[in-house]
């Protein structure tokens, strides 16, 4: 112990930290791991007690969920994709100019920013119920459009907060030079602002996609049969008679893959987006 060098001690410390971290991660991921395991098990292997730790993997649950079981989970995944992409596009359309206005002109912008942030903190159901009543009058229930309209609202606070941060970092001289050269406001937006805050737009696209893909309340309230999204569709594996554990686990795994891929390829962006609002404060 005494003649241990400083670097050895440091290495042991790092090793112990890594070991503790590993245990923490295992405890937090046990649900995801179990779910993925279950998705490859046969019904017989799932319901055996005590639980089977070693089993022969099968793909049958994925086939049942998507094709042969009559669950149509592929359609739900497609609906989620359409809705997420549509909502991201609409959210960018409304928040990019707004973020520019908020940073450069202040005034009304401060009020709009505050209101948008307030929307994020209000319970979604207090919008969802009246919206359901209104939309059913306009025959909008069970359309992609209905969910896209509400998901756009749902992701715009995060989008706005992120974009405001990116626009703030833009050097003012760039725009001033453009104004001196006689650029109009639309030119300023499309030629100067949007190209320079591309990383910000990418961040909004990724976070918005995740938020919309995972959203449940608006998706369940505004869908009925045709536009059911993946998170809503997983409940169909549970009936009052039985739970189709295997296909359900396969469905959950498929529905989680897109968002899980994002964290592996765009970790920094996601952290930046998720901590926006708190960390800068």
């Amino acid at each position, binding site marked *: 112990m005494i003649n241990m060098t400083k670097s050895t001690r440091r290495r042991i410390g790092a*090793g112990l*930290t*890594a070991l*503790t*971290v590993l245990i923490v991660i295992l405890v*937090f*991921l*046990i*649900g995801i791991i*179990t*779910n993925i395991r279950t998705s490859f098990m046969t019904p017989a292997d*799932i319901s055996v007690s*005590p639980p089977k730790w070693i089993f022969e993997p099968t793909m049958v649950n994925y086939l049942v969920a998507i094709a042969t079981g009559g669950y149509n989970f592929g359609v739900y995944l497609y609906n989620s994709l359409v809705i997420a992409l549509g909502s991201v596009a609409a959210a960018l359309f*409304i928040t990019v*100019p*707004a973020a*520019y*206005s908020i940073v*450069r*002109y202040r*005034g*009304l*912008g*401060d009020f*709009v920013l*505050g209101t948008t942030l307030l929307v994020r*903190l*209000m*319970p*979604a*159901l*207090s*919008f969802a*119920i*009246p919206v359901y009543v*209104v939309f*059913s009058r306009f025959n909008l229930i069970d359309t992609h459009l209905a969910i896209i309209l*509400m998901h756009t*609202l749902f992701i*715009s606070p995060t989008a706005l*907060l992120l974009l405001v941060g990116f626009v703030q970092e833009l050097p003012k001289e760039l725009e*001033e030079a453009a104004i001196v*050269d*006689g650029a109009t*406001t639309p030119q300023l937006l499309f030629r100067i602002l949007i190209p320079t805050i591309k990383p910000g737009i990418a961040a909004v696209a990724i976070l918005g996609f995740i938020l919309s893909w995972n959203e*449940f309340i608006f998706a369940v309230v505004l869908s009925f049969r045709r536009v059911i999204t993946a*998170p809503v569709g997983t*409940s169909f594996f549970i009936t009052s008679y039985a739970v189709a554990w295997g296909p*359900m*686990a396969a469905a959950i795994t498929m*529905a*989680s893959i897109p*968002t*899980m891929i994002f*964290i592996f390829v765009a970790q920094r962006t996601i952290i930046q987006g*998720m901590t926006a*609002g*708190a*960390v800068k*404060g």
Partner: protein
Amino acid sequence: MQHARWCALQAFDPTGTPESPKNSEVLFEMQDLSRHRRRVSILLLMPLILWLLAFSLVPMLYGAWLSLHHARLATLHRPSWVGFDNYLLILESSGFRYALRWSLGFALSSVAVEMLIGVSVATLYNRRFPAKGLAITLYMLPLMISPVLMGTMFRLLFHEAVGPVSYLLSGITGTTALLGMRFVFYTLVWANVVNRTPMVFLNAYSAMQGVNRDTLEAATVDGCSVWQRWRNVTLPSIFPILGITFAERLLQNFVIFEMVFALTGGGPGTFTQSVSIFVYRRAFERSDFGVANAASFLIALMLLIPALLLVRRMIRGVR
């Protein structure tokens, strides 16, 4: 033209004598320009403003209006005025009061555990160790998954008959019924903690990265222990962020819906019925939109003041 305007703005000197003809001309130009700027700024905000009006303010007001009416599914196109009857009904209903108490207890327990674990894990991560990037990614995974999917996963995990965790813990708990009356509250808190603690972790970890290294080093040189350094240097500097995180998590846990909906559906019976589940059931199982709107409007009112304070704090951070 634009060029001239811009130069005029640059050259304008507010201390200049107003009677000088050149300056008043510039002043006129300047007013013109500032009016133009205001118009542009509002125009840029317009799409967002319209969206907020159409899909949040109008629904909110319409919901408030509906809450003063008797509005069942059959009478939805012609709701009849009942004044504050729905509110009285809600305030007198033991179900709603139970839901309020339950949500408050759940929110406080969840946020306490989330803060404790989140800050501890952030402290653990706030040093060098191998494969740190991957470790952060893995710890954040639950945050990427929809609470509904997570809740459904936990349904399997804690299931009485097929749940591996129920089986493993049965030695300690004495039962595999982790979703039964006795353990369901703890199970729900834990499921929510697993799903949302990474959020607290992220905020705390990002804040810790911003702690002044020099101060920490100086404290080390002065012979402060690890605990003293954490208590006297790290904690004070991450405290504001922890405050915002705490407030936001508390508000969101109070109106929790997805996790409870997927894992217990508010059951057994109405034993784990949160306020959001109460509202949802009133609206979509009993089609009683008047009462449901009254309840959700009450909840929104309760959250309004803390939410406004939090928003003000967030905006100060952004500016």
